[in-house]
């Protein structure tokens, strides 16, 4: 059984004002295999961040089930410590994900204390140093505070903090979006190296399609809480089937003028997840809309070519 995580019809509705809900994730089913580098791609309101957190049981789904290695973990109020250690997360903003008043040693070592993985301070320091070195930093940083470090360095600390618990899979929530381009390359190469070394499974959340192409092996394109298209990254890039995916690819700015295609500039704004359009979520902006069927019925995910699924009435 190499299915690590399975999500079955996961929904997350956040209550909003009176009797309304922000439908952040609206019925998503996915499965992640061990050693996958799985990308979740989408714009704001797509639900990718919420979905990522539900995968590691940081947020409880409103309905639907989450399975970890075959066992359902949805209902467990507080994950047993062993399970908690297996799933970790690196957050987007390195400026707010580290406690401003704690030293680096305590930030990275926090998990070790909670899970009683070390017997004394000395052991903790040694272990923390080990992981500092792994992420390319030295022991001189042990007693520093986050504000003394750069964005790239802070993100390395966040990675060390997640990995010191020896997790099986890590959710990377836009880990480089807040960093400079040149630093981004360093961090991503570090993540690749660590994945090899520790045999990790990554769930890589990003809004940058080209980044996803370089890093991920499988990808899911999300829009307003639903998956529009998913499958092997290369096959989606070579042959985008969903009109939203096509539009996205056409509008991303490209360095090479020869690669620029006719832009499908989507009209209108991204609708609010409080009142998402009925039927296919994308129909209000879709240039290939068929008609009423798109307005009324949400298309199911269908495998159109091998390992390439789309949710669109064009392929019914």
């Amino acid at each position, binding site marked *: 059984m190499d299915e690590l995580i399975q999500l079955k019809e996961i929904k997350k509705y956040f209550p909003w004002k009176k009797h309304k809900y922000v439908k952040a994730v609206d019925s998503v089913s996915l499965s992640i295999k061990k050693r996958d580098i799985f990308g979740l791609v989408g714009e704001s309101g797509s639900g990718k961040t919420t979905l990522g957190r539900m995968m*590691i049981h*940081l947020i409880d789904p409103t309905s639907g089930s989450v399975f970890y290695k075959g066992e359902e973990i949805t209902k467990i109020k507080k*994950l047993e*410590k062993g399970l*908690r*250690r297996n799933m*970790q*997360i690196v*957050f987007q*903003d390195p*400026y*707010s*994900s*580290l*406690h*401003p*008043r*704690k*030293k680096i040693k305590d930030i990275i070592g*926090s*998990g070790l*204390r*909670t*899970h009683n993985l070390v017997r004394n301070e000395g052991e903790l320091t040694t272990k923390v140093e080990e992981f500092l070195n792994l992420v390319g930093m030295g022991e*001189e940083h042990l*007693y*520093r*505070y*986050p*504000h*003394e470090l750069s964005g790239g360095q802070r993100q390395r600390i*966040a990675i060390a*903090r997640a990995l010191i*618990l020896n997790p099986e899979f890590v959710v990377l929530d836009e880990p480089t979006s807040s960093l400079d381009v040149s630093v981004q390359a360093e961090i991503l190469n570090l993540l690749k190296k660590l994945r090899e070394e520790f045999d990790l499974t990554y769930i890589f959340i990003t809004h940058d399609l080209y980044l996803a192409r370089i890093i991920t092996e499988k990808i899911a394109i999300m829009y307003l809480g639903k998956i529009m298209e998913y499958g092997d990254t290369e096959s989606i890039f070579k042959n985008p089937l969903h009109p939203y995916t096509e539009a996205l690819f056409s509008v991303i700015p490209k360095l090479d003028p020869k690669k620029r295609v006719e832009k499908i500039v989507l009209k209108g704004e991204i609708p609010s997840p409080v009142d998402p359009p009925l039927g296919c979520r994308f129909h209000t902006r879709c240039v290939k809309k068929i008609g009423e069927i798109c307005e009324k019925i949400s298309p199911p995910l269908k495998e159109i070519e091998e390992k390439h699924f789309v949710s669109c009435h064009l392929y019914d």
Partner: protein
Amino acid sequence: MVSNLAKDNSQNWIISWRKRYSSEISDFKETVFLIKKSPLTMVGLTVILILIAMAIFAPYIAPHDPVTMHLDNRLAPPSKAHLLGTDELGRDILSRIIYGAGVALKIVLIVLAIDLPLGILLGLTAGYFGGWVDEIIMRIADIFMAFPRLILAMAIGTALGPSLRNTMIAIALTMWPVYARLARGETLSIKERTFIEAERALGTSNFRILVFNILPICISTLIVRATLDMGNIIRIAAGMSFLGLGAQPPTPDWGLMVSTGRNFLVNQWWVPTFPGFAILLAVFGFNLLGDGIRDISDPHLRRGRK
């Protein structure tokens, strides 16, 4: 050779100690720099240091015993023997003022020793857990806060009976809601921050999150507030003593001295006036210091703090 080794080891130890705390050391240096930059804060700090010195060294610096009566030398004007004169029972006013510093500081410390822990405990709990716990705690706080402080203190003081101890309890009871609210407000904003979410992802228990992650951040705001309140505490305590609800004779309490001395204001002005000045200077000093600490703690002033 052994002694050289020992010297090396102790030097290494000092060096590594300095490395470990280098951030704290530079923060401290920055704080000192900022304090020196602000003359008003320096004034406040000086006043408070003088008060503390008076409190600690009273038995050594006071020229006379503060309690012994000398009825043959009542209401004597300021002179070489009695620099600030004597009161209606012949006691040296200067000595009583010096000992009075200790009384005032004791009041401040005990009130804060009750209120800070109490406020933190209630505020953190209310803010973090929310729900009915929050409602109950905050409504109780509201009830206390609905009354003007001095009135409430007087009421509690009267109910408990006039004494210094009861004054301290009364003042503490009127002030805890402020700290609870402050702690609760800080907790509410901190608990949503990403680094707290990160702790939850690591599996940290609520208790550890509260004590080791949220509390260290709250505490600085609360301490700043406490220093701003020190002047108020002295003022209210002086008021209570003035009304007879606080310190009882023969305790050298400044408020009490003003109260018992007020009949002599016209002809023997020194009897109530000097204690009155003492109150004024103490409150003023604490206020300046409190303002200064608040400004210095402002993260925008400090480099790199986020």
